[in-house]
């Protein structure tokens, strides 16, 4: 089985947020809990778990016959070390802050003791959007997260084949015969993980046309990410299927630098929201228009918390007159606006060029700073004025699913210079965001989401440009491919006839 797709460059899911690394980790490592297709956490490596009456002590027991790829058994000590390592990443930060102790009870059981109850503890242990909690061997998990693990020894259904690894070109997974799947049916990341093929090769085919030709010729079985201009070719080939397996899709957004002129003024930021016509941007980002949607909720389009609070004023967009008026009220006097333009990312580059032309229409003095993504990342971290190497706006995208967790999604924070680039700050919003961890039940979270969104759009640190599906293509003789709402394509359960 051959997949054409991006490859991880780092193999430690605690070191990087790169989605290729996380996808690799889903094959090689296993998790305590797995989200089912309805995004509800279900025990995966666990046989059982329980919480004390005061909700401050959680006890977890591992399933029988779990083993690492080197044949040694998975123990509670491995899990404790993995959780402690996870605590050092932004993904585990919240649980770490609330935890008094994590300790082993016996070879198969361990306990998390909290300082005070944490309503979302199990959700956090199961989350897969940023730094998911994968179990590693104790000796690997003792390393700091900044020191990447390179041993590739997990307890998941697939083993990494070291001999066939060609860095940057291909990686090979073999079925791990020692893996014991659960008895229940496969359901997203939950249930039985049954490897039905002996070997899966991920190959990086850097040229999309060649990747397409290889799929048509049967040299690869799955093309994980398909550029929009190839959709008609796939749809016209009777041997191929085009499907939204990465069910999450991506939300494109622009981020403004709230520390520097002109976007240190809320009216200038709101002007941008009035200006953005998502349909126009979507036609630039995904010209096929297949599956495109507008996104106005801070919480995305497909998450349980998506809502319409405070969205009416910018929902329609495409109002340059209103934008001009707000710019004037903001006292704009022709300061330079620098858009960071990633030329090695086609969609981002096209959207940046279009954004520049739109902003010029309302009188902004726009300059495009073109570079590759790596240089963009370096420059966007700078808080200086544009004259001193700073920036004003950049465009990026994030999986829609990641907007379910305000605790861990850096984009959703408004904690000023301590937070993610753009550095929006609103203390009232942060109080609400902190509450997210403590409330329980979906209705309570939905109510909180509306309150947060009210403030988020008043502040207007970012603007959505639209929601684009991430379609995959595969040959018709493949069955059982599992795509997730959580935006992942999994290797188990699939078979080739």
């Amino acid at each position, binding site marked *: 089985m051959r997949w054409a797709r991006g490859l991880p460059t780092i193999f430690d899911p605690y070191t990087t947020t790169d989605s290729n690394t996380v996808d690799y980790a889903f094959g090689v490592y296993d998790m305590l809990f797995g989200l089912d297709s309805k995004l509800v956490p279900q025990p995966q490596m666990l046989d059982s778990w329980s919480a004390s009456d005061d909700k401050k002590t959680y006890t977890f027991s591992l399933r029988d016959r779990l083993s690492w790829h080197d044949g040694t058994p998975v123990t509670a000590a491995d899990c404790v070390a993995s959780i402690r390592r996870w605590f050092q990443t932004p993904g585990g930060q919240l649980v770490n802050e609330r935890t008094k102790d994590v300790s082993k009870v016996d070879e198969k059981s361990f306990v998390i003791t909290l300082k005070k109850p944490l309503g979302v503890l199990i959700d956090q242990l199961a989350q897969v959007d*940023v730094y998911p909690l994968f179990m590693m061997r104790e000796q690997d998990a003792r390393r700091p997260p*900044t020191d990447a693990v390179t041993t590739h020894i997990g307890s998941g259904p697939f083993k990494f084949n070291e001999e066939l690894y060609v860095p940057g070109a291909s990686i090979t997974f073999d079925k791990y015969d020692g893996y014991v799947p659960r008895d229940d049916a496969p359901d997203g990341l939950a249930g039985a993980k049954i490897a039905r093929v002996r070997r899966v090769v991920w190959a990086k085919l850097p040229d999309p046309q060649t990747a397409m030709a290889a799929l048509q010729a049967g040299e690869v079985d799955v093309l994980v990410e398909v550029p929009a201009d190839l959709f008609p070719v796939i749809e016209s080939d009777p041997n191929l299927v085009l499907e939204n397996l990465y069910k999450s899709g991506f939300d494109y957004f622009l981020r403004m630098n709230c520390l520097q002129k002109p976007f240190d003024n809320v009216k200038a930021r709101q002007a941008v929201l009035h200006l953005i016509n998502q349909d126009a941007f979507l036609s630039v980002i995904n010209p096929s228009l297949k599956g495109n949607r507008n996104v106005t909720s801070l919480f995305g389009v497909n998450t349980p918390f998506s809502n319409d609070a405070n969205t009416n004023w910018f929902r329609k967009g495409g109002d340059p007159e209103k934008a001009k008026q707000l710019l004037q009220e903001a006292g704009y006097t022709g300061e330079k606006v620098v858009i960071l333009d990633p030329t090695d990312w086609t969609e981002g580059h096209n959207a940046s060029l279009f954004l520049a032309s739109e902003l010029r229409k309302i009188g902004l003095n726009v300059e495009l700073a073109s570079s590759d993504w790596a240089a963009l990342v*370096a420059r966007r971290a700078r808080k200086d004025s544009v004259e001193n190497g700073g920036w004003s706006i950049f465009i990026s995208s994030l999986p829609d699913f990641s907007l379910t967790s305000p605790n861990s999604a850096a984009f959703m924070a408004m904690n000023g210079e301590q937070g993610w680039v753009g550095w929006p700050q609103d203390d009232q919003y942060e109080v609400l965001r902190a509450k997210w961890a403590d409330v329980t039940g979906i209705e309570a979270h939905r109510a909180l989401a509306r309150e947060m969104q009210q403030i988020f759009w008043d502040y207007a640190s970012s603007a959505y440009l639209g929601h684009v599906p991430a379609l995959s293509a595969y040959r018709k003789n493949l069955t059982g491919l599992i795509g997730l709402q959580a935006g992942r394509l999994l290797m188990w359960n699939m078979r080739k006839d």
Partner: protein
Amino acid sequence: MVTYIFRRMISAIVVMAMVGVFIFLLVRLAPGDPADIIAGRAATDQTVADIREQLGLNAPLPVQFRQWAGNLLNGDLGMSVFAGRPVLQLISQRLEPTISLSILTMILSVTVGISFGILAAWRTGGLVDRLLTAFSALGYSVPVFVIGYFLIYFFAIRAHWLPVQGYTPIDGGLGPWFVHLILPTVALSLGYIAFIARVTRASMLEVLSEDYMRTAAAKGASSHAMLFHHALKNAGVPILTVIGISFAYLIGGVVITETVFNIPGVGRLVVDAINNRDYPIIQGVLILTSGLYVLINLAVDLAYTLIDPRIRY
């Protein structure tokens, strides 16, 4: 001759030292560093800073240079930041596809290019000459990736004669190795065939118009003897120069071909390394490539003496 070679080796060392300093500074002048890439898109500044510290990127540049240059003198090109493997091992792993493609391309380009050039010169002004000149213009003008897509479409997708992409190592069988290299070799060769054919034709025409060629013809020498014994040998120096230059350019030119045909060679290794800011790989590949350029130039200069006895060093 020995003194000449010795002098050239000394100057090569000086050149390589300058290249080393230049490469080291160049990769660090580019904005961004490996820590940004390792941490990923959604990472916080603190995470990036921690990784930067872990990688030793906060050390002053002279300290980093001293460490790299010291290792280099001991034959150690360092470790890849991402793959966690020695750079030399990574390059060795990628060398076979690139060398295979380069050698096959040069064999095809030289044999066909020189043959076309001789043929065109022999039948100058005729139909064959015009056809070959048109072919040369086309081969020289059409980008290699366009030729690649055409070949893939007709020979792999439509006819199913050859694979679309990929590479099979030579120890996996000579047949699969060769079959995977046919399309990339043809795609890459066309430009070089055109280049070599044009230079051969021009060089041969110049020699064929010399007095001694008329004398040979008057003495009743056969066309074969005139072309291959008298003309080609005297036209050899510029042709050899062009072949040398082509081979040197080929090292950089395979990048696109490797990308189009998904061949995991050195070209793709260095492109990925540049995108990821994997400093040790970029530095290692560029140092070795520069060394190869110097050696090819030296080899071409020495080969002149074999073709033209008048040349002495």
